[in-house]
Structure formats: C-alpha cells, structure tokens
C-alpha cells in the first residue's frame, strides 16, 4: 500500500514463540498479542462480573432477602465491584488498547520493556482466579470493594486476605504497565515525531500512567497495613487497638478516586481516535484536549476526600474538596465540547463504533452532572452511600468506559483480525445495551434520593416497583452481550475481509497489514505527523489512493 515496503523480512523473531492462535496462550512478548490477551481475558472476567451483577439484581427483585444468604450477598457484591474495576475496566482500557495501539502511535516496533509487559499481563489471570476461588474455598471477602475497617478486620479473615493478595497482584500489574507506557511514549517515539503530533490516546495514556504510578503504591501500602491488622492483630486501623479508621479511608481514596480517571481517561483517548475517523474531520482543539487531560490528572489527585464528606471530615476540608472536585468539570467539559465540534460539519457514518461513542457522550454527560452535584457537600450529605451514588458511578464506569470499550472493539476489530464485524448486529447490540443500561441505572437516582441505601439485600417495600424496572434493564443488558459474542466469534471465522484500512483512517496502525506483522511494519516505519489530517476538499478525492494520501509521509 505504500511505496516504502522494502524487503527487509519481518525482522528478528523471538525464539521459542508458538505461532498461530497458540501464541495467545503463551508468554509472548509481542505487544499486539499481549494487548489481545488483556482484551479477551478482561472480557471473560466481564462475564463473571456480569453474572454476579445478575445475582445482585435478582436478589433485589423482591424487598426481602430471599435469593441468597445475607453474607453471600455481601460476598457477591464485593466480588462484583472488584472484578469489574480491577479485572475488566482497568486492564482493558489501559492494558488491552494501550498495548495494542501505543507502539503503533509512537512508531515503535514493541513496548519499551516487552518482558515486563508480558509479566504485567500474566499477573492478571492468577490474581483473578485467586479472587474468584476464594468464594469456593471459605467464602469471599464481604466488606465491599472498599474494604473499610473495622468491618474488613472483623469479617472472616481468609476471604479478606485473599482479596488483599489479589488486589496487590493486580496493582503490581498496573504499575508495571504504567512504567512501560511512560517509557514507550517518551523514549521510543520515532525521531521526528513531536509530542504535540502524537495521537490523543498517547496523551491520555501518559496522563493515566502518571496517575497509576502516583497512586497505586499508596493503595498497595494501605492494603499491606490492613493485612497486618487482620493477621497480626496490629492496630493501624483498628480503633479497639488505638487505630484510626478514617486514616484508612484517606489512604484508600487517595488511590481509588484517581482510579476513576484511570478508567475514564483512556476511554477519553480512545473516543478521540474514533470520532475523527468516522466524522471525516480533524480532532477539534488538539491543544486544549492535551491541556485538559493534564488538568484532569492534577485535579484528579487532590479530590479524594469527596468520598468522605460524612466521615466526620472537618468543614474546611469539606470545602476544599468540594471546590477542587467541582473544578474538574471544566477540563472535562472542554473535552465534550471538542468532541461535539469534531462531529459538527462532518460526514458522520452512523456505524456501531460511532453509535457507541455517542451513547457514551449522552451517558457520561449525565454521570458528570450528577458528579458535580455530588461534589457539593450539602447535596452529598443526603445521598452519600445510597443508590444515587450507585447510579452515578455506573453512568461513569459503565456508561462511560464500557461503552467506549465496545466502540473500540467495533473500530479496531478489522485491524485485530483482518475481518469486518457485522454492522447490523453491532447496531442492535448498541441499541439494546443503551436501553437496558438506562432502564437499569436511571431509576436508581430516584431510589437513592428517596431513601434506599446501597449495599443492601433487603429494602423498604415502597421501592419494589422501581427495583424491578431496574432488574429488567439488567436483564436486557445481559441479553445484549449475546449478539456481540456471536458477532465477534462468527466474524472472526467468516466475516467480510477488511483490507488494511477499511475506514480510510490516517493514524499509523492502519498503515500496515491487517492483522499486522510481528514487527508492526514489514518495511520502514511511516512517520505520521498529521494523524487527524482529514478534510481534503470533497470531490477532489482520489478513491484508489485513499490510504496513500500525501497527508502522511513515510520513512525518511
């Protein structure tokens, strides 16, 4: 497809690497293989987490605790939260797409530390299995994914300790990943590619990795102290031994608030790649996008105590965190307006990737609005720890990140496999997910405002109807994964052949074959200085040359 394909072979291939599909079950060091390993492994855990969500929603169909024992409910709830965050969203938006795309975007043939990269991935399956196995061994942890002491110190210890171990492994995995991304973006960037020319996802991953490295070690340290409290009966957080339970909350949220941005910033990056391609327009406001990412990183690190407005937090602290949190709306707002402006005046094809991205915009705007409301201390005091919060964070993590994960799969599947996904099934999947999602989580705002606390298996009978509506929405969401699964498997076998660049995109991963060769490019690495250079005058376009437009130059 380009004039630069030279016959340099595929470069040195690591020894002892299986080929074909078997390499996805091996300790491969190829960033593309690792990326897909993250993706598929994450999706498997999504199904696990989804089944747990189904169990939760089944219990909540009736106001009494009749579907499972009360302590089992708390285990299921804890597992659901932990699996969804640590084994699905974080690994997929960071690990999967980061590994697959970042080397392409900076013009590298692999990540900076390929073996560390493989280690980072291979920590995940054992950690996940450990977590799920704890349920069958002695019962899983039951203190919620936040593991607040003293509850986490007084509930059965085995499950809690396994939970800590598992989260530590997953945290280690993300730190390794973060180091690798920063090194790859800053050090392996092709000569000639300026920072301000990188595709936006690189910036998002740079910001995310800074957050990961700044905050994850704090979580790890905290959990180690917590495990001392549990097994060695130390008193860091145990008030019976002179400890302070609120200190744990500060330390925990110092990681776990940034964790929200670790889940959504990469999604912001991905949607910034998807929209310009399908709207055939340059990404609007590149420079402000970059600044807003960095603004979110800085603000994201100083807002954690907004999770603790009712924890006896002194008034001055409540005010500081209210103001800091409220201001995150500004950089976030800029991003949304930029995406709308990217669509404005485009030639938008309404395919599954775009529909999921637009679903994301709608959901995230709502989640963001309730987020700004929650940042106001007086407002939060009423709805903290209620279903309003459950609704809010699912609008962020599911309506935001998960919608973008799906959009990204529809967008990059042709690159992963060389085949197209079925668009009709894709649009059906999108509609069903969007309706199910809003039916499930929309009414929960009302539940929270009117008096239903979260993390309960039994509730006031006046909330029965709304909970049933919510459960029907959950059922629709569960059903909506079926066309997706079918589509992904069926298309891999007999989907339409995609060609190298089915979307006529300009970012570098499309300027190689689909799926790409081991070293990413058979010939020399193209230098893409304008990843968003869309907008050649209409009618002046030479169809046969779309993938070879002069907008990008290759080689030197």
């Amino acid at each position, binding site marked *: 497809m380009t004039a630069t394909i030279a016959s340099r072979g595929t470069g040195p291939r690591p020894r002892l690497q299986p080929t074909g599909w078997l390499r996805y079950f091996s300790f491969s060091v190829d960033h593309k293989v690792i990326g897909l390993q993250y993706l598929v492994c994450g999706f498997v855990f999504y199904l696990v987490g989804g089944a747990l969500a189904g169990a939760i929603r089944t219990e909540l169909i009736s106001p009494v605790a009749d579907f499972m024992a009360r302590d089992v409910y708390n285990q299921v709830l804890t597992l659901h939260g932990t699996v969804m965050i640590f084994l699905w969203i974080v690994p997929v938006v960071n690990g999967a797409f980061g590994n697959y795309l970042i080397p392409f975007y900076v013009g590298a043939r692999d990540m900076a530390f390929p073996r560390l990269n493989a280690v980072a991935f291979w920590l995940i399956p054992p950690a996940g299995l450990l977590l799920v196995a704890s349920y069958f061994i002695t019962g899983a942890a039951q203190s919620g994914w936040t593991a607040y002491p003293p509850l986490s110190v007084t509930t059965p210890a085995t499950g809690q300790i396994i939970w800590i171990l598992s989260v530590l492994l997953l945290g280690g995995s993300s730190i390794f990943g973060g180091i690798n991304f920063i090194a790859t973006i800053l050090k392996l960037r092709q000569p000639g590619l300026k920072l301000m020319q990188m595709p936006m996802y690189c910036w998002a991953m740079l910001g995310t990795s800074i957050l990961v490295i700044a905050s994850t070690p704090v979580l790890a340290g905290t959990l180690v102290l917590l495990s001392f409290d549990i097994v060695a009966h130390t008193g860091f957080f145990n008030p019976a031994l002179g400890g302070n339970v609120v200190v744990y909350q500060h330390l925990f949220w110092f990681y776990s608030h940034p964790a929200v941005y670790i889940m959504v910033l990469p999604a912001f990056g991905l949607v910034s790649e998807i929209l310009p391609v399908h709207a055939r327009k340059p990404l*609007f406001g590149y420079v402000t996008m970059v600044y807003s990412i960095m603004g979110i990183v800085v603000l994201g690190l100083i807002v954690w105590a907004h999770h603790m407005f*009712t924890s006896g937090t002194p008034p001055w602290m409540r005010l500081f965190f209210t103001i800091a949190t409220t201001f995150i709306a500004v950089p976030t707002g800029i991003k949304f307006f930029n995406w709308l402006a990217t669509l404005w005046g485009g030639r938008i094809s309404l395919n599954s990737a775009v529909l999921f991205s637009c679903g994301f915009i709608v959901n995230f705007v709502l989640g963001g609005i309730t987020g700004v409301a929650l940042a106001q201390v007086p407002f939060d*005091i009423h709805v903290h720890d209620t279903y309003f919060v459950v609704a809010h964070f699912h609008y962020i993590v599911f309506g935001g990140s998960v919608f973008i994960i799906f959009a990204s799969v529809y967008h990059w599947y042709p690159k992963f496999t060389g085949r197209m996904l079925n668009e009709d099934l894709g649009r059906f999947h999108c509609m069903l997910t969007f309706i199910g999602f809003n039916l499930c989580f929309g009414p929960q705002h009302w539940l929270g405002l009117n008096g239903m606390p979260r993390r309960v298996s039994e509730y006031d009978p006046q909330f029965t109807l709304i909970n049933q509506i919510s459960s029907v929405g959950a059922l629709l969401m569960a059903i909506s994964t079926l066309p997706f699964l079918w589509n992904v498997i069926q298309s891999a076998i007999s989907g339409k052949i995609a060609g190298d660049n089915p979307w006529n995109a300009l970012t570098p991963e499309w300027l190689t074959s689909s799926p790409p060769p081991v070293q990413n490019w058979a010939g020399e690495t193209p230098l893409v200085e304008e990843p968003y250079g869309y907008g050649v005058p209409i009618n002046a376009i030479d169809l046969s040359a779309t993938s070879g437009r002069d907008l990008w130059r290759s080689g030197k």
Partner: protein
Amino acid sequence: MQIPSTILTLVLGMVLVIGGLWIGQTINFLPTEASLNALIYDQLFRVLFTIGAILFVGIVGLLVFSLIRFRRKNNYIGDGVAIEGNLPLEIFWTAVPAVVVLFVGLYSYDIYDRMGGIVPLAHDHVNETQEQKIWGGVGSRSIDSETVSNVLSIEVTAMQFAFLFHYPDGNITTGELHVPADRTITLRMESKDVIHAFWVPEFRLKQDIIPGQPTQLSFTATRPGRYPIVCAELCGPYHGSMRSAVVVEEPDAWQSWFSSNTKLT
C-alpha cells in the same frame, strides 16, 4: 457548513433555559421535607437540577442534531471541513462552564453555611470532663449560638445491627427516636463495633457513626410524623435491616411521652 443564524441560536438558548427552569421547578424527586435542613437542601437541589437539565438537554440536543444533520448520506464519499480549532469558541466554552461551576460552588457554600456546617470543630459541651474532640456533622453552629437550655441532647449508640438512643436528661433509653418538633436536637453518636451511618431521608441528613471517634449532628424537625432512620454504611450481613424510626411529635405530645418514660431517681 451552515451555522444557524444568531437569532435562531438565541431563541433556542432561551427556550432551553426557560424549559430548564420549568423542569427544575415542577419536577420533584425528593421525599417529604421534615426538617429545617430539608427546606434549605431542597433549594439547592432545585438549582442543581435546573442547571443539570439545561446542560443535559442542550448537549444531547446538539449531539442528536449533528448526528442527523451531518450523517453521511448513502454512497457519499469525501471528508468534512478541515477545522482544527477555533480559539474564541474554545475560550467561550472554557469560560462559561468555569463561571457555572464557580456559581454552583459559591451557592452551595452559602447553603452549607445556612445549614450551619461552616464552624470550627465543635468541642463537646455535654461531657466537658473528657477533653474530647467531636467531629462535626452538619449543623454544629446551632449548638454554639443557641442557649444550651433550648437544645435537646441525645446520645446515639450504634452497633451491629441496631441504634440505641439515650436521653441523658430523663435517663431514658429507647430503640426509637422521639423528638419534639421545632426544637434543636443534638445527637452525639458513637459506635460499638464497625462504622454505621445515621440517615433520615426526610431530614436530608446523614452522618457516619465511627468507632473510637464520636461524631455529632444537630437538626430541627419541623413536621410531626414517623420517618425511617436508615443505616447507610455497610456494616455486615444485616446491614439492610438495620433501620429504626424517628417520631416527631408536637411539643406537648412529646413532653408527655418524655415524662411517662422518665426514670425517677
């Protein structure tokens, strides 16, 4: 590209704002207001809801409009216009949200002040003997500004899975909170085991009850009735059933309840 004329934008903007105001004023998602705090809270809620509705409808409207207006028609090939940015526009949509959130922040600060939240940490006036810091919930102000005699102090003890209320004055202990309407109540709360939270949705009040670290909360109930007290912090298997009730009575009725239960010493 056709940008709608300025007049049209203006009209649409006004419709949006008026619609938002209307939505904010008419739709009420909240339960009964039964405390002074609730009245203030609901004002904030209406403001947030109005702003939220305007933003949501505006953004989603813009999105849906662009999707329809700029969709790629069948077998149409070619790109959109190559606009990469527009500085005045970007300044505009940085400045406007900044002003909006600044307004929201200041307004909620004012609300918080009116709820009595903005005072330095209160020291325990009841048990002056122990030099103990009490970490304040909302409404610590009223304790300081009102005469002590007018305030009814109650001690709350939370444990897995019940609330206990103790009235030091009459030496009454109950599982149900009885309070007179229109009088400032101060709760001094402590937990025996894990963290619990005291929440009365109709009062719009919540405060964690933390072991080893007493907290306090004060409120004035306004409307006689019976309202649920809900534990809002995961505290173990029976967390969902950790509920009680607060009974708000007219002062006379409350007084007779109080006297008939007072333990004579």
